[in-house]
């Protein structure tokens, strides 16, 4: 996932603008790019969504099949999250098994969905200890211009919210909507020198010192976090980011309902 070296001039320009509170594309520090969500995009999936966040473009599909539960959770369905950074999306993505970056991304998305208890996994149990629904949440990046974390998460929850459990074709009764309990929202910021900005573009990510992803639920409680990159946040900064995230996520949540 290594991007080519950024020129000193582009780096300098981003720094110079940020020192006066501005961004290269003219956005406010806590402003997201335009978001477009198209659900039910793929008929062969049980749920799907295509999300465009500025020029970043991701496609998420949910496939469900009947399988065995894990031994330690015999009464719960299974969630498997996978992200594919396919070479179509960027000159720097290579074909082959997911690299560390893709795995971190998949695990952060998975944690946000799982820890928020968005899906009522108990309702996805067919026969205790024997048969449950297995959810494959597969995320494909189609065009990469930064902030995959939030684009993929929006895609994941939009796809899950439109998912229909394919009970009928599996002889398990009538089809029903995916049993959902919560609506988590995730936001990501990067820190560049002393500025903290939401929804970074690819160029902003390239000069970022540190990254923080925060997932909160509709009650304003924390559900998952991930700090990334080699820089650091102070505790005060972390609290500021969480406060701002709660504010920003209201608008994002409104996109979903």
């Amino acid at each position, binding site marked *: 996932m290594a991007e080519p*070296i950024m*020129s*000193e*001039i582009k780096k300098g*320009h981003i720094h110079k603008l940020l020192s006066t509170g501005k961004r290269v594309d003219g956005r406010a520090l806590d402003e997201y790019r335009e978001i477009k969500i198209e659900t039910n995009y793929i008929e062969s999936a049980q749920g799907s969504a295509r999300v465009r966040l500025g020029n970043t473009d991701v496609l998420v599909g949910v496939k469900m099949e009947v399988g065995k539960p894990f031994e330690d959770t015999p009464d719960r369905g299974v969630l498997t999250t996978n992200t594919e950074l396919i070479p179509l999306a960027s000159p720097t993505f290579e074909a082959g098994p997911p690299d560390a970056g893709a795995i971190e991304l998949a695990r952060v998305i998975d944690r946000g969905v799982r820890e928020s208890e968005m899906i009522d996994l108990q309702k996805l149990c067919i026969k205790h200890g024997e048969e449950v629904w297995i959810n494959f949440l597969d995320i494909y990046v189609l065009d990469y211009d930064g902030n995959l974390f939030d684009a993929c998460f929006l895609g994941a929850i939009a796809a899950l919210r439109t998912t229909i459990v394919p009970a009928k074709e599996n002889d398990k009764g009538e089809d029903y909507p995916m049993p959902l309990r919560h609506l988590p929202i995730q936001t990501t910021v990067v820190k560049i020198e002393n500025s903290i900005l939401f929804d970074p573009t690819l160029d902003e990510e390239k000069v970022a010192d540190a990254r923080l992803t925060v997932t909160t639920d509709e009650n304003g409680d924390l559900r998952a976090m991930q700090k990334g990159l080699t820089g650091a946040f102070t505790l005060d900064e972390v609290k500021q980011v969480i406060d701002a995230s709660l504010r920003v996520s209201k608008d994002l949540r409104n996109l979903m309902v």
Partner: protein
Amino acid sequence: MPGDLLEGEKLKPGAGTYVSDGKIFAALLGIKSVKSNYVNIIPLSGRYIPAVGDSVIGKVEDIGPSNWLIEINSPYPAPLHVNEVPWRVEFGDTARYMNVGDVILAKVLMVDETMRVQVTMKDQGLRKLQGGQIIEVSPSKVPRVIGKSGSMIQMIKGYTNCRIFVGQNGRIWLDGEVDSIMHAIKAIQMIEQDAHSHGLTEKVKAYLEQVSGQSAPRTE
């Protein structure tokens, strides 16, 4: 479009065309242009392919003991030898002069048949660039950004008071006040999007007048 028959009396095949069964066909997606009986296709898109004498904006990608490897937005990386810079550089001392990530104004010195490219900084005005901002446009749009005899780029410079350098490889360097740079970039993006529409110059002019509050470009 590729495969389109290019008809016409006494036409000779030019750039972006090919001959099959004695007839001329387009090899590119582009615009037909006839010049002294040669029919050419001016491309609408495509990567930059270096040609000798082109001014380009390059980025230092790697450093060797006696050269720098310059990335010039083309399929082929271009070495810059220590003999081709305006400074006297001792063997192994290259990093003291330019480092990875530095941006330079260079000229294509040589391109051989297998597309081995060399660039030079030994010519008037060629140098390391500092400050300002770099943007990228499709190399096929560079003639539009420059305009007839440089008219378009002069207009942008005049209204925004920016220093601007357009590389043939689609990279553009701008320097000036932060807001002016943003206005100049916006104007260039307008040109890139609307490159082939009529009344483009007027549209760009109207935009620049509006943001600069000037009714005419400043002249030097």
